[in-house]
């Protein structure tokens, strides 16, 4: 089902006209209202009057993750603070979190984008949406919530955790739509098996999975274990949260709500815009967002675009499922983690040398982060309890910095491979 065929199946020419109008209006607005953007545009020698067509977007400066930290918390605000009705943030794992401040209108546009996403899985008023994305500052939970509300479906705001209760409710409430991270869906499948529950007998027919990268192989596994159709959804706090793009029933690329979020693919080194089919960094501009509008945000996600109309009837451009990152960010259980943050925590602890390694694994369908730390004479003690206390100190430090549990493992000195130049800090064993 297409939620909004007017926009999602619009003729290209007409869409370009709308995108152009929206871009002009947006650039004009941020130039007037956001000193940060005015300065950026002035530095580039661009005035709002130079923007007349969506293709003029290339004249605009990029916005990077570092910029996002500099504007913390509200320097991107383009409206009177009184008009903000809700705030969400990223996990803030790289220091300052990214803040997304929503006006009433932004919540409507987010609901619209998420209704389109949910409708890709044929969600309608008759459905019950079991929403196991976390509720809170994280955008996942409430994003799905608002979309389901707009559709008029019954939303079950179970949030994350408590797997036994998730399964009981999934079964008892006869939910038809499941929303969570792909790895958690497999965890649910495993737990169901252990409890003697059969997903075949449950009513769930479609799952909308996102917030972490996954693969075709994982899709096949999810579909066969949970007996549902698994769709990939994509979004990020910087833009709106989930709802930026999602797969339709043909599972052949994620349709971007491009009347709201304008995508470009660039060469991450030169910044040049690439054509359809060419892999590069995804850059997104919010065309209608009011609270914290985003101009050419470099997502660091690697993908490519396809403007061919889809069999589903939508003309909205499709992006390939994510192919990687331009930086070293790891996504662990849906949480963004940078190796540098872990290093920071480790080096704050007296006596630790910068010899560590991160090993990521997927055990029982859940991401597992193991932090190997080399023992040395300053840290060593003949008493086990001191060593265990030390391990605990590290993992508590990591938990408070990253918000995820890690397993700290003390290893012998020189057992972590040294290499010329950049050390091999990360071993990702996940088979995605």
């Amino acid at each position, binding site marked *: 089902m297409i939620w909004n065929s007017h926009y999602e199946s619009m003729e290209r020419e007409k869409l370009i006209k709308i995108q152009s109008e929206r871009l002009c209006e947006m650039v004009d607005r941020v130039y007037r209202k956001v000193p940060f953007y005015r300065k950026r545009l002035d530095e580039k020698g661009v005035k709002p009057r130079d923007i007349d067509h969506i293709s003029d977007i290339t004249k605009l400066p990029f916005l990077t993750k570092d910029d996002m930290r500099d504007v913390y918390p509200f320097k991107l605000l383009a409206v009177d603070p009184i008009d903000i009705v809700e705030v969400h943030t990223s996990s803030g794992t790289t220091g300052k979190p990214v803040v997304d401040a929503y006006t009433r209108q932004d919540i409507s546009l987010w609901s619209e984008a998420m209704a389109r996403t949910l409708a890709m899985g044929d969600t309608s008023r008759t459905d019950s949406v079991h929403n196991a994305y976390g509720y809170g500052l994280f955008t996942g939970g409430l994003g799905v919530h608002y979309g389901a509300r707009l559709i008029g479906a019954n939303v079950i705001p179970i949030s994350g955790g408590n797997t036994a209760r998730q399964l009981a409710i999934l079964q008892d409430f006869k939910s038809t739509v499941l929303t969570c991270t792909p790895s958690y869906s497999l965890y649910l499948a495993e737990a169901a098996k252990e409890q003697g529950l059969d997903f075949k007998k449950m009513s769930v027919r479609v799952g909308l999975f996102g917030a972490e990268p996954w693969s075709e192989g994982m899709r096949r596994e999810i579909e066969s274990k949970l007996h549902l159709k698994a769709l990939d959804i994509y979004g990020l706090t910087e833009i709106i949260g989930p709802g930026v793009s999602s797969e339709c029933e043909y599972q052949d690329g994620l349709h971007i709500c491009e009347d709201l979020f304008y995508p470009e693919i660039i060469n991450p080194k030169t910044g040049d815009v690439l054509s359809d089919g060419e892999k590069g960094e995804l850059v997104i501009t919010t065309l209608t967002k009011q609270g914290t509008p985003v101009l050419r945000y470099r997502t660091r996600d690697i993908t490519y675009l396809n403007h061919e109309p889809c069999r589903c009837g939508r003309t909205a451009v499709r992006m390939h499922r994510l192919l990687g990152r331009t930086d070293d960010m790891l996504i662990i259980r849906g949480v963004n983690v940078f190796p540098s943050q872990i290093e920071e925590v480790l080096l704050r602890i007296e006596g630790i040398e910068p010899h560590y390694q991160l090993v990521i694994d997927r055990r029982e369908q859940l991401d597992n982060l193991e932090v190997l730390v080399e023992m040395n004479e300053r840290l060593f003690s003949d008493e*086990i309890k001191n060593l265990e206390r030390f391990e605990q100190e590290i993992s508590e430090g990591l938990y408070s910095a990253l918000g995820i549990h890690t397993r700290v493992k003390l290893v012998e*000195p020189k057992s972590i491979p040294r290499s010329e130049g950049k050390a091999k800090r990360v071993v990702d064993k996940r088979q995605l």
Partner: protein
Amino acid sequence: MKLKQISVFLENKKGRLAEVTSLIAAEKINIRALSLADTTDFGVLRLIVNDPDKCFDVLKKNNFVAQQTDVIAVEVLDKPGGLQKILDAFDDTDVNIEYMYAFVEKKSDNAIVIFRIDQPDRAIKVLEKNKITVLSSEIISKL
């Protein structure tokens, strides 16, 4: 009289313990007593040897994390209640035993217990007061 114990950090990996013992054997160092405390991932090997300084050097040269710690060796009558007498002596004081292990002496009927104690000097005083023999490192290395 305090005694030097060598402790070594070992990952729980096949062959690691054998590497330590072969290094020590190659230097003709004799192990008098040992204990291995372990967790899931790692262990701490504690050794009483005839030449602790040499043993420590050899291990360090081979990239092992090792440490020397003062411990106390006490002779215990090899009969029921032997150990109890010592523990009772400690019990009335604020001396804490971190861990201990024992071995049997060949030349006599006695067992030797190694104590790792938070305040070794104080422990020695307590023992002497209770007329319990604390063994010197010379005696241990000649056993």
